[in-house]
Every structure is written in C-alpha cells, then in structure tokens.
C-alpha cells in the first residue's frame, strides 16, 4: 500500500544544500514519488519547470542568484509560467515572522520550518491533498488564499458581504 496515490507524480526540489536535497528526495521516495528533479536555485528551477511538468515543488528560501521568494513570484505571476497553480512548499530555517509573511505574500502554498522532520513534511503534503486552497487573484496578489485565520493586519482581497465585485470561478 505504501506509495499508492503518489506514484505518478513528478516533484521538483529547489535547494542549494546537497544534503538537504538528498534527504528531501529520500522522503519523497518514501511516499512513492520516484520522479524527482533537483535545482540549486530559482533560475535553474524555472528552466526545469519549462522542460518538464511538475506536480509538487519543494523550495528553500535563501539561494543565489534567485531565491525561493522570487522563484515563487515568477511561478505564480509570470506570463510564461508553466503552471501558476502548482503547490509550492517552502522549507526554510529563516523562520522569523517577517520572512514567513514574505513567503505567504509571494504565494507559497505551505511553509515548513527547518529542521525538517518526515512527520512535518508529510503533514504539509497531506494538507495540500486533503484541503486544497482556493486561489485568489487581485490587483497585487495571485496565489493560494492567505486567509486561513482571521488577521487584523490582513491587507489582501476582501470577500465579505460588503466586498466589491468579488467573482468566483468554478
């Protein structure tokens, strides 16, 4: 049974640390994802995304010359993005609140703080599978709905009763 469900998926790991790439690949293999590509920064990842379909992206935050935030923004917003809806899990040791918020605002689907554990990685993948998020498109953002919890500082789109011109796509 192990591996069932994930066997046809293609994943992309974007991480500049070889040890972390190796571990992430092994963990993806453990759930049955065998077709895994690797990139050491956002620029290379974009090339790979153009050349082959990817169903899931795991990306680090801090990389050179293109970091995970810029990469995510490209995937979500660029006219030539191969798949603006692809699930992106950002995995980073940069867990300061402002950095996590920057990741959210770039359009990541999930954020996973290092040090990683198999349990936490699988929980994030489970979230994507079990509770896929609606996407929001507005003037200054495109990506997964950022409102999982009420946030008084929220500056994103408005969807309440008195919101203006909210449209739903089905």
């Amino acid at each position: 049974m192990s591996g069932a469900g994930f066997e046809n998926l293609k994943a992309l790991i974007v991480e500049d640390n070889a040890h972390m790439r190796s571990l992430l690949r092994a963990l993806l293999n453990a759930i049955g994802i065998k077709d895994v590509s690797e990139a050491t920064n956002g620029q290379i990842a974009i090339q790979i995304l153009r050349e082959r379909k990817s169903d899931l992206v795991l990306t680090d935050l801090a990389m050179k010359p293109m970091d995970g935030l810029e990469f995510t923004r490209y995937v979500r917003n660029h006219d030539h993005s191969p798949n603006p809806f692809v699930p992106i899990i950002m995995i980073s040791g940069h867990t300061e609140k402002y950095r996590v918020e920057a990741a959210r605002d770039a359009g990541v689907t999930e954020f996973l703080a290092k040090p990683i554990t198999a349990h936490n990685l699988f929980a994030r993948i489970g979230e994507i599978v079990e509770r896929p998020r609606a996407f929001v498109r507005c003037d200054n953002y495109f990506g997964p709905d950022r409102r999982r919890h009420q946030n008084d500082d929220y500056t994103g789109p408005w969807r309440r009763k008195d919101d203006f011109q909210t449209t739903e796509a089905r």
Partner: protein
Amino acid sequence: MPKPGKSKTVQIIQPDAYPQMLSKPRAARALHTLRAPETAAKAQVAMEASMPPMRAAILQYVEEMERAGSDMTRLFEAAHEIRGFAETAGMVTTGRIAEVLCRYMDDIMRFGRTLDTTIVALHVTAIARAARAEDDNVRTGQTVAAELAALVAKRLSESE
C-alpha cells in the same frame, strides 16, 4: 463599503476550477499512504541514513564559521546552514545555539544596529564545542543555549 485603497476586483478560483495535484480517488489513497506505518518506517530509514553525511557537513560549516572571523555575512551564512539541518542530523544542541545566533544577527542587521562581537564569538565557540562533543551532551548544551538566549535578549532590549 470596501476599505479605501484596497483592491476592488477580486477573483476567487475554487479548487475544483484549477488542476489538482491528485484526482479525488488518488487523493484518498495518497492520504492513506501518508499515514501508513510502513511509510513512517521508510521515512525513518531515510532520516537515519542522512545523518552521518549531515553530521560531517555540519562540522565543515563549523570550520567555515570559525574561519569567517570578522566577515559577518560569511559567518551568518555558515551559522544559517548549521541551524537549518543540525537538528535533523541529531545535533540538537548545536542547532539550537545556531538558531539563537542567527536570530540575534538577523535582528541586529535588519535594524542597522551594531553587532556585539563578544556575543557572536561566544555563540561561535559554543556551537563549535557542541558540534565536536562526541556525545552532544544535551542537558549541558541546553543550559548553555538558554543562557546565551537570555544574554541576547538582554542585549537586544538594551539596544532598543
């Protein structure tokens, strides 16, 4: 009424309106896989296999951090790598002290303050000792980590 300055046109695209990673039947099987004991066992094997090379890499980053001297950018990059996967490599104390150092340096540099080189040096020494300790003595290390964290918090509050 919408708040002034907020976007007035918002499109919500529900999950069934864009391509999903998995079809619903596959998603059910995938969730079962994620929660299966055999998956956890495979993951555990993968984690354990990754530890020896990671520990070796951590020691290299420690040397890199020590060699960085007054080059704080280089020092921070090495410390950041250590905090990123020392705990995954089973070097809990090393990772936690590196975490304290990175948070201190990040806060100081973000707000344009001056780093206290004594605090940095204390952390570098503590990280190196923890990483090289054969048994990575957790209790002693945690005490050191807690004391360093308290020192950093005090210095940060003084510099505000």
